[in-house]
């Protein structure tokens, strides 16, 4: 029986666990192997995820599970995303959706954000969680590689209202060699679809001499989808199989991105401490409307939010925002 949650469309059954090893076929049904088991359940600043244009200043509960449908050579979460999920279950937190929502409230969280690994590998649990979150008035967002099938992309759209999609590279060669998938075509298709369904930001980790030549092409694609899409270009700190790789040169990448801001204004360059490129500038008049501080993978934070509602205080132009500014200690806020 085929699993249709992602574009691998694995044939499950006869003991085959599929690429992500998170589903089994039982009695003609595709079932999660480890439902309601979370590798992460941590309060975090929403800017740390990163979301720069969704619920600024708010506190989210970052959750994740195990397993992944990608095999990124530089994975920074390989200790949970690349391991056999069965081998890491003894470290997991087991909470049913109502229990998880209760913990989110106790931790003063305004939203729930799926991070760490890929939501497609845990969709049934997330569908149930979404029902509880909606009842509690908690928005849900996620990081996703968007390698979902068209049908499960629609499901993602029912679970989450804000997305940060990893677009790692465009060429087939890069995707084969570094990510382990044949092509980025499904990802591009799903960026368009999810941008129509909800709020989308996109993240691209830069690997020197591998995908740094594609930055302009990626930017043109995003501008074609929606010129106001926030784009996070990450200075990749190589981990896992690429631990010995060179750190990408900051000045060279920053120079390349400067030209792109002419047609894609919300371009950010971070994932290193003290980045100069984490503030939001008004696309109309250039005024700084949101200031942030980057702590690299220690998490970014809001420093000041100067918009009036979702408008530039200088020229009145609308600034792309999903939700409003939320005080850090507001606790749960109905959207």
């Amino acid at each position, binding site marked *: 029986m085929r699993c249709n949650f992602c574009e691998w469309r694995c044939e499950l059954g006869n003991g085959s666990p599929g690429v992500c090893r998170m589903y089994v076929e039982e009695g003609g049904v595709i079932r999660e192997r480890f439902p309601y088991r979370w*590798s*992460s*359940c*941590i*309060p975090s*600043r929403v800017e740390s995820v990163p979301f720069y244009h969704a619920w600024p*200043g708010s*506190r989210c509960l970052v959750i*994740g599970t195990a397993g992944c449908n990608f095999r990124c050579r530089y994975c*920074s979460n390989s*200790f*949970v995303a690349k391991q056999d999920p069965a081998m*890491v279950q*003894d*470290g*997991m*937190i*087991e*909470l049913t959706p109502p*229990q998880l929502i209760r*913990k989110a409230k*106790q*931790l*003063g969280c305004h939203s729930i954000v799926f991070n*760490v690994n890929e939501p497609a590998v845990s969709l049934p649990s997330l569908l149930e969680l979404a029902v509880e979150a909606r009842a509690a008035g908690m928005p849900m967002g996620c990081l996703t590689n968007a390698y979902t099938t068209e049908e499960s992309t629609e499901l993602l759209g029912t679970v989450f209202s804000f997305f940060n999609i990893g677009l790692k590279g465009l060429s087939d060669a890069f995707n084969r060699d570094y990510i382990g998938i044949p092509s980025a075509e499904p990802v591009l298709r799903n960026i368009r679809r999810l941008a129509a369904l909800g709020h989308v930001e996109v993240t691209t980790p830069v690997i020197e001499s591998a995908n740094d030549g594609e930055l302009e092409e990626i930017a043109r694609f995003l501008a074609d989808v929606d010129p106001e899409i926030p784009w996070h270009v990450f*200075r990749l*700190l190589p*981990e896992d199989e690429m631990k010995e790789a060179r*750190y990408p*040169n*900051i000045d060279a990448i920053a120079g390349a991105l400067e030209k792109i801001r002419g047609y894609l204004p919300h371009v950010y360059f971070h994932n*290193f*401490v*003290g980045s*100069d490129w984490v503030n939001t500038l008004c696309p109309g008049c250039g005024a700084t409307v949101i200031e942030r*501080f980057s*702590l*690299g*993978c*220690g*998490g970014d*934070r*809001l*420093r*000041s*939010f100067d918009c009036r509602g979702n408008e530039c205080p200088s020229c009145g132009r609308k600034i792309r925002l999903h939700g409003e500014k939320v*005080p*850090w*200690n507001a606790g749960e806020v109905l959207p």
Partner: protein
Amino acid sequence: MSLAIIDAREWQRVFDLRTGAGVEEINPLLKMVMDIQARRPYPGDLDDAGNRWVTDTALDLIAGYDPSLVYLTYARQFFVGRYSVLTESEWAGMVSSVFEEVNRFVARSGFTPVIVGTGGMIPFVDFIDVTRLDGLVLSTHWSARYAGLHDGSRRDLQGLAALPEIERIVPRHEFRSLFGEYPGDDSRIPEYLLVARPGHMFRTVGGAFRKVRRVPAPAYAIPLAAESGVASSITDIRRLVVESLRERKIALIVVEGLGMDDFPWPHQRCENGRGWFYYEPGDAQYLTLTTGRHQVFEYPTGYKYFDEDAEKKEYPLSGYFTSVPADTIASGLGVRSVAVGNRSMLMHMAPGADISIECFARNLFNQGTMAVIHRMDKK
């Protein structure tokens, strides 16, 4: 104003440590420190060269600043021991390599060492799952033995009391009274401190996911190797160092994850807590060592650190620290001091040295290094 210099490899920026505002002016002292950072990129918490980086960076800083007090932390074996499967001989090899590094530092620098172990490590036995209580249980990232319970129900307390893996459940007032009068605000202290039996660790929401292999061993006493004098308690080491400084240059060297049985140097026994409470490696132990007073309640285990993390929080580069601790060992000295180590923000916060260089790593992710210059007016 304290200055922070970030080096993220081929990228350096200077900030006001308190506000996080950028600083443009670079003077010769900053330039000297920035050059060391550029020359000495941090290899990573688990990397073989993690402890060598401490020695090399400290020797460079001594050459550039000529201090009389050096505070060092060697922590690689603590990180590796915590997360890696090691045979007994691999562990022994790692312990001997940290001693070689300490010996290399002492031989090259000529400083008189005062060496403290923060307590040994034992195999991890099991988690105590406290994630599904009515109340909220929080622990602190590197802690195993302690967790704090907030808003616990009667059912929670009954259930916890029945768990054989829990050694004791301590109400806030009882915990406070163990250390006499605490003048500060006690609202940070959880209503109950949960204490695990050796080898166990609390599984809490808010904890980081990594497979744990070793946890801190019971450490009612920690080893102190010092030829220059005697100290019977962790609160007495500061006095010993300050007195010794009158006659010679001193290196206070903290070796993480090693206890009484691991020390190859002749050593004394130092009390590491009070009554049933002993310090695990972390900020409370560091601050107790550097202030000479018990510091259990400043950032107590299991407090809701995240409630204080609002956008206006000061010291954005210093983790949960909300201020520079007062009256630490180096902060009031007339002589020059430096600190170097791979224990992140503890290096610029706990000893209060004039200049410190630390790894900027979070949850083992290596971001580079950070130097902090607290003062530059000493002759």
